[in-house]
């Protein structure tokens, strides 16, 4: 199968140290730390006076930065370019979830008002086992999700610093760990908003400049790329736009459902709703978050089209897999090229080095922002939910800090090791963590908020089944083949119905059923828990200082009193 020519072809990415892009990255890091330091110094320490609150727009930007990782920035364009219509499922899935969040969960979570996602599970299901399972899954999600980010960092380091992929992963992961260590006292939300602005500007700059320079588009490349898409389909590869050519209709649906429901089950996304001023802000943050996210997602398909054309016929004269004769179409480009496609598009359009550098820097900003958020959600699962709540309730702040920092170090090292040889494309890796979040968390969050009779036994059984389905599916078609060297899935039948990327289509209904059935046959939850659930839906707007538990503890205003 492998022709000799492919052995010579490695990547179209222009690897080598570039002074200006390298300086851009350094300047960006200094800016983040500087902004953080400024806001730390300026912070008012008095706890008793209500300080400045984060508005919906700023919180929306923070949601956007937390959300848009290397997977969105680099991975989605890669998946659309290589899988065509199937890849569009990622765009649909990773945006639609916000509607469900908006309608069913954002404001209710705000009213619950606890600290971490496992806190919600532990308190709502009055069970420390449930809390423990939730904390464990939070750690796993952060871990799988972060591997994709490490992979994106390595690719960009190749272009910017001329390092090997491996050295790039190690360097940028190291930088991220240090950044997280410093970031807590820094202006977290301010920095998130800034990271969003940098990454979206870098992304759009590349898109507009390529469209403009090639005469393909002017002010709205999103809408103007139709002619190029047609060209791409007719001249090069009809499969690109053919529905269900790469994967079946079932796989497409499975993927989209997993991504949508996974969005609603991601711990590091949900915590942003706990902290806003009131539920109105929680709702509007979701809307703004979705808007800011769409600016980028809409552009990914356009990048895929521009990138595909340029990959076939590079303006810059660089050698790609197609011009080198290694592959017959851009849709078969190697994984490393695909995942670098956003930056590669700009490079192949013969744009100056500094411009490609900015686009690459945006990818690093995206990866950094998300990874920092993931590491913190992992450390809080370990330090707060597992160590303090389950193991040592008397733990002091400093003990928790030691546990948290150790967790960040350990998970950082593990992620770096796995990212050195990633088992899948960036977008696929991240999709797997969504499948886990959808199967394990979405049902307990949703039923926990909306059905007061959901019991602890139901939640525990549901989460265990969710773990079984989602982990099993990933082991079956990704992990086992990867580490045993076997080609294809362990069980192809299972992989066809419950794919690792899309296990939620089967998993979520099963978990819902398990929770409902088990809840019906077990003893119904204690009254204070039911009251808590009702309080999350109170039509009376809650005072901004009220979290549901305070109201419930005050004797409550519920009907049975």
């Amino acid at each position, binding site marked *: 199968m492998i022709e000799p020519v492919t052995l010579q072809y490695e990547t179209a990415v222009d690897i080598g140290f570039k002074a200006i892009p390298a300086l851009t990255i350094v300047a960006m890091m200094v800016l983040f730390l500087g902004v953080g330091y400024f806001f730390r110094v300026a912070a008012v*320490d008095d*706890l008793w006076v209500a*300080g400045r609150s984060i508005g919906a727009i700023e919180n929306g930007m923070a949601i956007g930065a937390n959300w848009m990782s290397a997977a969105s920035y680099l991975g989605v364009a890669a998946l659309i370019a290589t899988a065509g219509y199937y890849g569009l499922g990622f765009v649909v899935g990773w945006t639609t979830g916000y509607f469900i969040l908006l309608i069913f969960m954002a404001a209710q979570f705000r009213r619950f008002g606890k600290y971490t996602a496992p806190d919600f599970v532990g308190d709502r299901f009055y069970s420390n086992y449930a809390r423990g399972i939730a904390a464990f899954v939070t750690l796993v999600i952060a871990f799988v999700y972060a591997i994709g980010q490490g992979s994106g960092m390595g690719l960009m380091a190749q272009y910017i610093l001329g390092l090997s992929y491996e050295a790039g992963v190690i360097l940028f992961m190291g930088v991220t760990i240090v950044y997280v260590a410093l970031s*807590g006292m820094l202006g977290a939300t301010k920095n998130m908003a800034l990271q969003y602005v940098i990454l979206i500007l870098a992304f759009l700059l590349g898109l507009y400049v390529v469209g403009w320079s090639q005469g393909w588009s002017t002010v709205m490349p999103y809408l103007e790329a139709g002619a190029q898409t047609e060209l791409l389909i007719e001249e090069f590869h009809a499969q690109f736009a053919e529905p269900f050519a790469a994967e079946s209709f079932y796989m497409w649906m499975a993927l989209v459902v997993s991504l949508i429901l996974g969005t609603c089950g991601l711990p590091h996304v949900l915590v942003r709703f706990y902290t806003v001023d009131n539920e109105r802000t929680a709702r509007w943050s979701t809307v703004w978050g979705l808007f800011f996210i769409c600016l980028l997602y809409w552009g990914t398909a356009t990048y895929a089209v521009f990138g595909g054309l340029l990959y076939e016929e590079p303006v810059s004269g660089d050698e790609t897999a197609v011009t080198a004769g290694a592959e017959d179409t851009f849709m078969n480009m190697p994984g490393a090229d695909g995942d670098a496609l956003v930056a590669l598009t700009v490079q192949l359009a013969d744009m100056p080095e500094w411009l490609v550098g900015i686009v690459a820097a945006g990818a690093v900003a995206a990866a950094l922002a998300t990874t920092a958020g993931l590491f913190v959600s992992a450390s*809080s699962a370990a330090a707060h939910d597992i160590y303090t709540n389950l193991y040592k309730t008397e733990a*002091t702040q*400093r003990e928790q800090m030691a*546990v*948290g*920092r150790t967790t960040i170090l350990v998970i950082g090292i593990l992620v770096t090791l796995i990212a050195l040889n990633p088992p899948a494309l960036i977008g696929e890796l991240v999709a797997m963590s969504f499948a886990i979040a959808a199967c394990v968390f979405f049902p307990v969050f949703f039923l926990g908020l909306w059905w007061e009779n959901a019991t602890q036994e139901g939640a525990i059984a549901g989460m265990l089944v969710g773990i079984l389905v989602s982990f099993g599916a990933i082991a079956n078609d990704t992990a086992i083949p990867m580490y045993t060297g076997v080609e294809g899935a362990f069980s192809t039948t299972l992989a066809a119905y419950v794919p690792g990327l899309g296990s939620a289509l089967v998993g979520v209904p099963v978990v819902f059923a398990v929770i409902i059935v088990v809840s019906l046959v077990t003893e119904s939850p204690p009254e204070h828990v039911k009251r808590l659930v009702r309080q999350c839906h109170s039509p009376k707007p809650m005072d901004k200082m009220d979290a549901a538990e305070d109201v419930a503890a005050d004797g409550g205003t519920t009907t049975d009193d």
Partner: protein
Amino acid sequence: MYEKILVPTDGSEVAEAAIDHALDIASTYGAELHTMYVIDTAAIDVSLGTEQVERLREGHFGEMPELQEEATKAMGVVTQQANEHDLDVSIVEQVTAGQPHRQIDRYTKDNDIDLVVMGSAGRTGVRRALLGSVAERTLRTTKTPVLVVDIRTEDE
């Protein structure tokens, strides 16, 4: 000589080792004893999450009952020990958030504290690299006299 003494606490054994000393000095000099609980934002960051640091900064401490409880309990030990030893010392309690050594320094300046009495774990090696020493940082930051009670000597 000492009119106002500060004994910062985080509820740990290390911090509580200093309380005896602080109470004794306060009652000897008839000084007012201030006790202070600093919510360490760096600890909140890795244990509760970065968003919670923001929440504190926005003045939402009131809706974080677990933290309040922890602070009240830690500071309550001072009054408790004063009662146990039957000492007549007036005690002032204060909760704040930030980096502990900076907050201690700020408080001593703002309230004309004459002496800070605090514990030290005498950590070495990895644990020290991971956490550092609040006592050491306080010594470097503040110009007020500091009495450091090492928990290891207490054990002997």
